[in-house]
């Protein structure tokens, strides 16, 4: 057994930390306040190779293992969750479907520029009435064989990276049955940004992740060429379940970065802030919050590296990914809440980073499978007759 990251991974952590502290941290508060998607900085993350880490070198990637990608997500999330989710969604939701299911031509056209970090792909699964119950997709895509075109109708809800200036496409799940009587056949269709009949609605007003790009998407007789089918017809559900397994480890890594930041900032504040004639860190109620944070950080980090390791070994990861996501995201929400508490009134102020971390953390328990859905996955794995 080896708990050590390689020398190169440690050196890389240092580089990403330096990048995050120099290019992201000084601006994060302003981007959050002004709801800015910082496209230049996203492109700089691309030049640093962050969007291509886990993809093969033949497509311009680094052929790195999944843990290396987790390291990058941790370090970006340590300073700003919005930028971390832009990276996570760009890689695990945008590019991964092309890597797993794309034809060689689709890989060349879409995966290669995504790996280079020059464009982003978005992943349209959720609908107004199909969130946790994603199989309830109502969007339809009908193939007109004579014209060799799909016609897509419907809408998608809460789609990350779907309306940025560098968004190249969105992959959407849609019903592709020609007869409506049988069980739904769900397939994945690629829709390029700017296609007629594809409307990106104005950005949502959110509780956090203000510098991340989220939109509702509407498809009204939107036509795309027949070769825009991604993967097998009817393969949509299976495909997104695999994509979400990877994504859950990645979201957990993002949560680890958040806990790391909360711990560092809480300890520093507990040492430096005085009340009643001494540092507040001498009170056990403050100090022990930090102790608990350190334990959850260690647990969460071990869970994600273990899950990443299983994935790289080609072992089943559904359970490990669910555990990592469930534990790490709930620990992150707790850590941000405790950090705000340790900062007192300052913790409620926009100038104090932990206030942003607090607003940004809650979504971690919701996106890419809610905590309840992770518990459901785990209960089923235990053979329980749970609904």
């Amino acid at each position, binding site marked *: 057994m080896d708990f050590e990251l390689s020398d190169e991974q440690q050196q890389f952590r240092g580089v990403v930390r330096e990048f995050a502290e120099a290019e992201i941290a000084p601006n994060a508060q302003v981007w959050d306040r002004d709801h800015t998607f910082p496209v230049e900085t996203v492109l700089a993350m691309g030049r640093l190779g962050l969007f291509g880490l886990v993809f093969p070198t033949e497509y311009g990637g680094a052929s*790195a293992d999944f843990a290396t990608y987790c390291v990058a997500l941790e370090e970006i999330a340590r300073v700003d969750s919005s930028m971390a989710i832009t990276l996570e969604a760009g890689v695990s939701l945008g590019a991964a479907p092309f890597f797993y299911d794309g034809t060689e031509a689709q890989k060349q056209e879409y995966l290669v520029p995504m790996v280079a970090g020059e464009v982003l792909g978005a992943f349209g699964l959720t609908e107004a009435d199909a969130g946790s119950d994603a199989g309830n997709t109502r969007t339809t895509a009908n193939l007109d064989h004579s014209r060799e075109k799909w016609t897509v109708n419907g809408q998608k809800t809460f789609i990350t990276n779907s309306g940025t200036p560098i968004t190249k496409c969105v992959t959407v799940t849609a019903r592709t049955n020609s007869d409506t009587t049988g069980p739904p056949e769900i397939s994945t269709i690629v829709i390029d940004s700017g296609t007629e009949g594809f409307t990106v609605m104005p950005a949502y007003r959110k509780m956090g992740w203000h510098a991340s790009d989220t939109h509702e998407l509407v498809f009204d007789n939107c036509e795309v060429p027949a070769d825009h089918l991604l993967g097998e017809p009817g393969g949509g559900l299976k495909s997104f379940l695999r994509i979400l397994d990877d994504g859950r480890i990645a979201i957990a890594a993002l949560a680890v970065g958040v806990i790391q930041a909360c711990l560092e900032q809480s300890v520093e504040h507990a040492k430096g802030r005085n009340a009643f004639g001494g540092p507040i860190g001498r009170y056990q109620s403050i100090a022990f919050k930090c102790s608990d944070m350190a334990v959850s950080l260690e647990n969460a980090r071990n869970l994600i590296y273990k899950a990443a390791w299983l994935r790289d070994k080609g072992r089943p990861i559904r359970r490990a990914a669910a555990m990592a996501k469930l534990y790490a995201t709930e620990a992150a929400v707790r850590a941000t809440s405790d950090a705000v508490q340790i900062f007192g009134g300052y913790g409620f102020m926009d100038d104090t980073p932990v206030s942003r971390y607090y607003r940004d953390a809650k979504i971690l328990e919701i996106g890419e499978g809610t905590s309840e859905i992770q518990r459901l996955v785990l209960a089923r794995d235990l053979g329980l007759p749970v609904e």
Partner: protein
Amino acid sequence: MNVVVCVKQIPDPSVPGQLEADHTLDRSAKPILDESDSFGVEMALQLVDAAGGGEVTLISLAPNGEVSGLRTALAMGAAKAVLASDDAFAGTDALGTAKVLAKCIERVGDADLVLAATESSDGYTGTVPVQVAELLGWPALTFAKKVDIADGVVTIQRQTEAGYDVVQSSLPAVVSVTAGVVEPRYPSFKGIMAAKSKPVDNVTAADLGLDGQVGWAGARQSIVKVEQAPARLAGEKFEDDGTAAEKIVAFLEDLKVI
């Protein structure tokens, strides 16, 4: 075009430095690439890129076979490195350092241009680049804030107090560059992995034919004493009772600064 970059590996400045009994810096911790030299590395990569061919070679004099700073520069994109490391180099002064670096440049063989920083972040005598140039018999162009190469001629803008001078020379030449001449890139993970297998030619004093000319024996300088800088004296305070501005003006006139 082939460019050689002098790269100093220095103790991490974010860790408080310790002096040894002989007044030299404690260099037992893992060193890092001197930030001053990251500009030279980036400049070299850009020049080679613009020339459409050639490679960047790093040279470094460092104790204990240290390569961690070199690896950073290799990860940025340099092709290979020469590392001079040998117990016999301990105590080498600035001129000795220049001798070692000049020999390394000769060993590389095909350099069209040598880049260094104007001064290192730990020693900062600012003397090594010109000494290297003198030893090689090459022109030295210093304090470059911009470097251009065309038709075998190097043109730099030399930073001055009033603005800049334009200085030209034939190649090969030694150019020292200022911080900010270019924006150093961050090494990518791919670059870090590639750096692992890039060649580092480890040479000794004997390999360079410098036995006895470097190290404590060869040093013509010695550090006699290291002292704390004197504490700054308390300033003069003017309370503003309506006349403070005049008093400040009088004070500055006294100092002959206005």
